[in-house]
């Protein structure tokens, strides 16, 4: 089922439609559709066309640079990489338990990050589709149109994001690419003046977050028949979970549930992720395809992110978010919600949770503590996992005795969602595009399905060595004169080229 529409049997006979660049997502990607003469979709693929290579060029660098260096993967959610790397570095410096101050400052930073990222995604990127319709005028279906038609909503989105960025600045030193988390702790606490500056705004942010959840509920429940069908694909779900089964963003065990909500793995130590998850390489994308080892690539792919987290958790400890989660769960009628647009609903419940959790954490006197950093016996391997806004994020580093990185493996949220996104766009292509004359609004439906995952394509392409490559040499007229292919197994071949004779 998952490979349906992945590869057409005779692509040379098909017409190619390309959506490039994908808009209102982070990073560079494209979708290709192959259609037959009756406009039936025969192949649909999300391609990530950029290559970053962080896993390679951090080799040989000192481990203590990692939290600051790898966060440059991204400008939207650098805190997630910053903290995942710091958690891995905690392992490297032999610290299994941070001081209360360090842990709470990091948690506050992460809540601010998730709040700002979710606000950015919903209000700036996704809401134009939902408020103006998938087929709204393309020149108006954007943040500028939102400001024109719904200035209050746009302003709330901008100011909520600003608040989250301010939380990051206070905990990490800068709004983007700060330096707060160190191996074994943090480099600053939160002063009383800084705390007070956040406390004066939190009530307003909380009110706006509540309004945002009601907005998405109204949108989805206005046309549930369509919204529950659009991009709905049954997927396993993976996320971190707290020891009591509650929603968790910073630290916990891994939980995996099947599409019916049956728990396949629970409270699994993420230090064992290499046994739990393997990655498949396909020759048409720079992004790998992770899957649960015990289920294999065909059945073992999974979804991460807000929809997975809210489906997976037993409860929120913040009351407003918990009330909303119960409404969300009830909508599934005993089964996890699978529609791709329910991701927005889950995302805004998390936005509300973050606002509540920040409100609850700010009065904690541990934030003003001075025990910032611990050290222990150095170790050669460190694995840090965190729930980034877009989903579960794995950072794995190995160092030599001198403290220099020898190996790195990053499984980024969007990589975890690779198969889920591809499956969602194939569902949309099959149900809503197949057999129809393609128009911009129809093609936008593909982008809407991708956008719901809030993919960060810049974050997601880092492995080197086994990456398939297709190298073409063209002459000045664009005619292909040579071609070299490296396959996922490392084999290199030079396919024959039909060269026109002059």
């Amino acid at each position, binding site marked *: 089922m998952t490979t349906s529409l992945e590869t057409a049997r005779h692509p040379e006979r098909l017409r190619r439609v390309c959506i490039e660049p994908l808009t209102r997502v982070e990073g560079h990607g494209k979708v290709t559709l192959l259609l037959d003469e009756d406009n039936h979709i025969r192949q649909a693929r999300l391609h990530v066309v950029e290559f970053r290579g962080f896993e390679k060029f951090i080799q*040989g660098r000192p481990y203590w*640079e990692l939290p600051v260096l790898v966060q440059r993967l991204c400008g939207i959610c650098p805190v997630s990489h910053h903290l995942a790397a710091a958690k891995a570095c905690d392992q490297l410096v032999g610290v299994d338990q941070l001081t209360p101050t360090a842990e709470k400052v990091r948690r506050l930073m992460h809540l601010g990050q998730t709040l700002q990222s979710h606000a950015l995604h919903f209000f700036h990127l996704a809401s134009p589709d939902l408020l103006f319709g998938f087929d709204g005028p393309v020149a108006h279906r954007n943040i500028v149109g939102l400001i024109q038609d719904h200035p209050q909503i746009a302003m709330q989105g901008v100011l909520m994001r600003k608040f989250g960025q301010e939380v990051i600045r206070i905990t*990490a*030193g800068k709004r983007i*690419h700060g*330096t707060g988390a*160190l191996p074994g702790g943090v480099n600053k606490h939160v002063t009383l003046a800084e705390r007070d500056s956040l406390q004066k705004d939190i009530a307003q942010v909380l009110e706006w977050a509540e309004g945002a959840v009601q907005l998405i509920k109204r949108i989805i429940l206005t046309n549930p028949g369509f919204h529950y069908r659009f991009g709905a694909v049954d997927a396993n779900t993976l996320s971190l979970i707290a020891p009591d089964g509650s929603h968790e963003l910073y630290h916990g065990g891994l939980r995996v549930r099947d599409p019916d909500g049956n728990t396949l793995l629970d409270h699994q130590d993420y230090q064992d992720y290499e046994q739990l998850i393997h990655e498949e390489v396909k020759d048409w994308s720079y992004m790998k395809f992770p899957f649960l080892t015990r289920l294999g690539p065909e059945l073992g792919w999974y979804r991460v992110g807000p929809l997975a987290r809210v489906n997976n958790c037993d409860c929120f400890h913040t009351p407003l978010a918990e009330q909303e989660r119960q409404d969300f769960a009830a909508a599934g009628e005993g089964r996890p919600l699978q529609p791709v647009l329910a991701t927005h609903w889950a995302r805004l419940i998390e936005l509300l949770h973050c606002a509540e959790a920040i409100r609850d954490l700010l009065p904690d006197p541990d934030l003003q503590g001075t025990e910032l950093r611990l050290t222990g016996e150095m170790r050669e391997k460190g694995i840090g996992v965190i729930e980034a806004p877009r989903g579960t994020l794995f950072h794995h580093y190995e160092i030599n005795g001198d403290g220099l990185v020898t190996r790195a493996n990053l499984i980024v949220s969007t990589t975890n969602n690779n198969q889920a996104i591809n499956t969602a766009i194939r569902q949309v292509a099959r149900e809503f595009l197949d057999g129809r004359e393609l128009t911009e609004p129809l093609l936008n439906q593909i982008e809407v399905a991708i956008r719901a995952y809030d993919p960060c394509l810049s974050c997601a392409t880092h492995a080197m060595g086994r990456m398939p490559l297709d190298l073409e040499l063209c002459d000045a007229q664009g005619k292909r004169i040579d071609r070299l292919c490296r396959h996922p197994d490392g084999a290199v071949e030079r396919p024959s080229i039909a060269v026109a004779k002059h």
Partner: protein
Amino acid sequence: MSNHFTLDGRQLPFVAGQTIMAAAQAAGVYIPHLCHNPDYAPHGSCRVCLVAVGRRQVSACTTPVTEGMAVDSRCESIQANRRAVLQMLFAEGNHLCPACERSGNCQLQAVAYYTGMLAPHYPPFFPRRPVDASHPDFIIDFGRCILCELCVRASRDHDGKRVFAISGRGLASHLVIDSPSGLLGDSDFAATDRAAHVCPTGAILPKHKGFEHPIGERLYDREPISKVGDLRAHEDEVDGNE
């Protein structure tokens, strides 16, 4: 009887034999520099302390002051030449401030800001120079070495060890370490050496300490180097020494 010269229109005293740099520093006037450190003999290699004396541009750290000399350190042509020198230094090495633990405490970065250099200009060389982390307490990131020879001079003139030297010529010039393996860990280098604390960039750094100073509390976060002065005056604060 005191002698006088003018620096940017201000009349300043000097003592016979003083360089322009020494006289300016004695009067509390900042002239940007990287390879200069008053603890060691002038070197004149970085060319950042260029000043105009009449029609000539000379290095302030090696040029003696003379009676009545008129020195211009702040005119735009001088600042432009300093920026060009700094741009070349940044292009030759791997000076990636956003990911460098010395950022905010770095003299090279602070001098670049002082001269108005806000971003790289020339295509970077991206030299492949592996980090030497073989010493238990310090690392050397050769990609950040600007060949100022301060570590060479400190090791030789203060520590009496000659751990460092410059080898090669021209573009091939590079820092070498006197040890059987060529690694710092096999040398006589010690964390207490002066050579460990004179680097004006992030080339010689203590291990495990990166990014301990929060953004906003780093040396040059607060005021420009013309007011804060060299790293030398804030060594304990930056290196975290007791």
